[in-house]
């Protein structure tokens, strides 16, 4: 977990992959390949393209993620908005940034999901009741995980 100067939080996952950057890029950007590891949907790596990904529905969440492609640098960088809406109309809007760094015999792939703003205090103080919705959304996220993801915490 990284906390930025603005107080928003990010999740970073980074991994070395023993595959050429070109191939990793294809898996990240070609719709039918994306469907096989992320979620099925109409993803296309075109700036401005709006897409919808669908995971199996879980209680309180229809499993739908909506996104918009913001940046495409072939074999280098891919950025999209990541937006989910729960049954109660609660929304979570973040940014997902993929970065490929070619290294010897492969590539280091980095994913950063940024912009979680649960503790933006002005939001709490305002009339918006954003945070209970955030909680509701969190519950849905948890519910969509395999059980082992929540163990040992």
């Amino acid at each position, binding site marked *: 977990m990284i906390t930025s100067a603005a107080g928003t939080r990010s*999740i970073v996952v980074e991994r070395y992959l023993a595959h050429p950057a070109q191939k990793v890029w294809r898996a990240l950007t070609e719709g039918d390949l994306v469907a096989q590891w992320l979620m099925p949907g109409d993803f296309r790596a075109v700036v401005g393209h709006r897409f919808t990904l669908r995971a199996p529905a879980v209680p309180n969440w229809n499993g739908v993620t909506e996104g918009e492609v913001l940046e495409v640098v072939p074999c280098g960088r891919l950025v999209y908005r990541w937006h989910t809406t729960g049954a109660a109309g609660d929304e979570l809007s973040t940014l997902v940034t993929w970065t490929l760094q070619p290294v010897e015999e492969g590539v280091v792939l980095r994913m950063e999901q940024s912009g979680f703003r*649960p503790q933006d205090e002005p939001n*709490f103080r305002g009339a918006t009741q954003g945070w209970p919705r955030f909680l509701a959304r969190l519950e849905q996220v948890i519910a969509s995980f395999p059980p082992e*993801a929540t163990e040992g915490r």
Partner: protein
Amino acid sequence: MRYGSGQVIPPTEVLRSLADPTRRGLFEHLMREGEQNVRALTERAGISQAAVSKHLGVLKGAGLVHGRPQGRMVHYAADPQGLAPLIDWIELYGAFWRERFDRLEGLLDRMDP
């Protein structure tokens, strides 16, 4: 994990304390209006003072409010920091992505070069 108060409170306990709509209403009210005493909270909540006190006790146990005695009255205030354990739950999204990375790696192994 430690927060301002030095207490370690599991996120489930924070969630449980906020799951009750009346209790959540009390917490939101304190968030918006600042410090209040039990009588003022009772007048607004439309439930008995005993029930309000009990709810405040639960919120206090979850680290979401704290009380400040003044004479015979106790003034309660919300503690936004009490939400911190929930924020750390975001990490669970990390588990989601790690699982997706595993699947991506499996796919790359299956793909033609």
